[in-house]
């Protein structure tokens, strides 16, 4: 019997194709599930307590939205600042900056609360058609340090299907359906809402119950996006943000300043500023790996920010940041901007509130990061990818 007649048998052909489909599903399914394993964050010398997000909304316990909340309390009393990384899991600078704080910062006065993977679900899956790698690594003195790289929203397996229209609660503003899983459109959230709204609600509860004075939400944006290398501040936080921008300028870091638009609902700075007593701000850096103009998608692109397509677009005058062959490196530029920004926020806060200071005892230093990257501040992962 020749191959053609063998193949022309419908049952046989169906069987072969079905077996191939099952094989592909098994291989890729294993790969998909493997991304749920996360790389542990080491408890640095400054960590005094570790909570979980579900402490603030018990229904999150056991879900992929639950995540660690690190508390770095100083010896002396003071104010409380919350730093959030990873609300968007495809914006690594915020996530890495938060991890660096947990592993290396020590507070003298006041309390630093850090959530490195605020939308933990987002880290467990990439976005279709974005070809995101599941992880990337940085070199440290003890070996490779691995980080997850996920999608912009909560994983679809955790919240599905998206409605045609996403209606923000409580404002009623409508957005396209895929924004239903975008945590930075879900604030202030609700206890009985969808998965993403519940995660956001837990954060809002944390801010309320722990009497957080200042919320700093760390993000990145694609280089073609106008709001970049910028602080976005709620109106009550604007005065503070102005002194931070000046402080950063003195350190050689140019940063823009934007008021949080009152008609764009669901964003952390808008809703936490409106619904809690905290001052709320957000910081953006430039991440080519989430941009639409980027060339080949690789883990190196995430780390170096070097991309020839962006260089081309910059030459055509289509970008809002300068872009040349040096790229925008994750460690020396983007994480550094976030870390320096947080430090300046603590400084500016303390100047205004001397009786309730936020004073670090040990903090990642700009000069060292510029020279050696984050290697001195991070520890290698126990397990590789």
């Amino acid at each position, binding site marked *: 019997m020749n191959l053609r007649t063998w193949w022309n048998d419908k049952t046989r052909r169906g069987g072969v194709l079905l077996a191939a489909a099952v094989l592909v599903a098994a291989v*890729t399914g294993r790969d998909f599930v493997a991304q749920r394993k996360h790389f542990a964050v080491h408890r640095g010398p400054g960590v005094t307590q570790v909570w979980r997000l579900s402490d603030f909304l018990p229904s999150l316990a056991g879900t992929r939205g639950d995540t660690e909340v690190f508390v770095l309390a100083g010896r002396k009393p003071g104010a409380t600042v919350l730093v959030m990384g990873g609300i968007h899991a495809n914006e690594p600078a915020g996530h890495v900056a938060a991890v660096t704080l947990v592993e290396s910062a020590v507070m003298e006065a006041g309390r630093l609360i850090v959530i490195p993977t605020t939308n933990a679900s987002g880290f467990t899956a990439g976005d279709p058609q974005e070809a995101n790698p599941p992880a990337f690594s940085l070199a440290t003195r003890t070996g490779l340090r691995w980080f997850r790289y996920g999608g912009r929203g909560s994983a679809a397996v955790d919240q599905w299907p998206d409605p045609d229209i996403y209606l923000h609660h409580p404002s009623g503003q409508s*957005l396209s359906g895929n924004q239903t899983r975008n945590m930075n459109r879900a604030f202030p959230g609700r206890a009985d809402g969808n998965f993403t709204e519940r995660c956001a609600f837990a954060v809002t509860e944390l801010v309320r119950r722990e009497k957080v004075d200042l919320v700093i939400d760390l993000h990145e944006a694609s280089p073609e996006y106008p709001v970049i290398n910028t602080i976005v501040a709620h109106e009550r936080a604007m005065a503070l943000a102005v002194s931070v921008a000046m402080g950063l300028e003195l350190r050689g870091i140019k940063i823009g300043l934007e008021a949080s638009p009152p008609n764009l609902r669901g964003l952390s700075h808008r809703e936490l500023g409106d619904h809690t007593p905290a001052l709320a701000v957000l910081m953006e850096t430039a991440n080519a790996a989430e941009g639409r103009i*980027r060339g080949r998608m690789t883990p190196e692109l995430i780390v170096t920010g070097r991309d020839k*397509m*962006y260089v081309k677009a910059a030459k*055509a005058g*289509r970008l809002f940041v300068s872009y040349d062959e040096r790229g925008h490196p994750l460690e020396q530029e983007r994480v550094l901007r976030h870390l320096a920004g947080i430090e300046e926020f603590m400084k500016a806060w303390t100047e205004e509130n001397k009786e309730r200071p936020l004073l670090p005892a040990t903090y990642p230093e700009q000069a060292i990061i510029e020279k050696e990257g984050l290697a001195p501040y991070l520890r290698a992962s126990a397990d590789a990818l």
Partner: protein
Amino acid sequence: MEFELIILLVMVAVFVGAFFLLRLPVAIGLMVAAVAGALVGGEGVPLRQLVEGMFAFFDLILIIATAMVYMKVLEHSGVLHTLGRQVTEAFHRRPTVLLMALMLLVMFPGMITGACATAIFTTGALVAPVMLNLGIPRVQTAAIIAMGSLIGMIAPPVCIPAMIIAEGIDMPYVGFFWPLFLLTIPTGLVVAWAMGRRHLRHDLDPAALAAAMQPSVFPAHGWKLYLPLVVLFVLMVAPKVAPRHVYDIGLPLMLTISAGIGLFTGEKVRLREAVQTGMKEAIPVMALMVGVGMFIEVMTLTGARGYFVAASLALPKVWLVVTAAVALPAFGIISAFGGASVLGVPMTLALLGKDQILALSSIALIVGVGEMVPPTAVAALFSAQLLGLESHFPVVRRCVLPTLAVLALAVAMLVWANWVGKLTP
């Protein structure tokens, strides 16, 4: 020549070769092209990305599958031809008015869900028999429904491309209703009239008409015959009317529930046959979405997508409008919504300074035109499927002129966005 351009050219060449020379289905051609692109790009056969890419259309695939089964159930139960008969008998004296009403009916599901597939497989299925009764040829009927779904997709209140772009540039989706309404509703009516008027027969003899149509099953079942239509309508509209109170259960579940009801409201439905033929007809379309998903993901992975976007944006600013009019519909060959996100957002940012809402509404309509660009031309493809045509290319051919007219309108609006913006308060 840049490496990414070579990858892009290889992908296009393999697709064209597979489709025109080897006569492979469009879907298989796209998949083979995706794998070829990945190989040339040095990614091997990236199973992870191939599978991830197709999940972009997972929801749409479920909609197509359930919609086809729903349609088969309606067909078996007799509601489709009975409704077509009743409407034709009631309104055949005023065929032009009827045609325009049918056009609005086709556009409606697209207006509230933002997807052209929804329009074609729901109200498209209802109006098709009426149009045929009126004397419009099968291919032309498919073409009119395809155009209606395309325009309805952009018509307000829900215009997904406009929402995607607005979201991408941090602009609230507010104030779009009237610009989109004026851009689409009159256009839809004019298109229906222009495409249908030559075929409309004003001298239909009621007796001959009645003899030509399938017998009505209304006397046997009464109003309950229409229950599956009513239930689907309520399920679709209620969450839009009262979004705070009614949960949007998703179109696949709505269609399944309505199909379930349709089993008991009319003529006997041969369920096994309905599901089998429905799925059989749905598979080429579902496979196409899978192929498109793989194709885009590999373009992203290898940098070919970035090359395409960067090259489009690098053109001088005066040419940007022309680029938008060519590149956005071209992206529609693989995915109109993908084009809105990937190309529409940076394009709109580059065109800022014009009246933003008007400019964005025009760009959304340009994006919509992409649904009619061959070889995929999904609007024509779904519509040809609906009318049981062998190939969708004759449908595309009938749509060339109307599509170009819509494109011209959108481009003119984009060019004049600044000027018009000054006139509207």
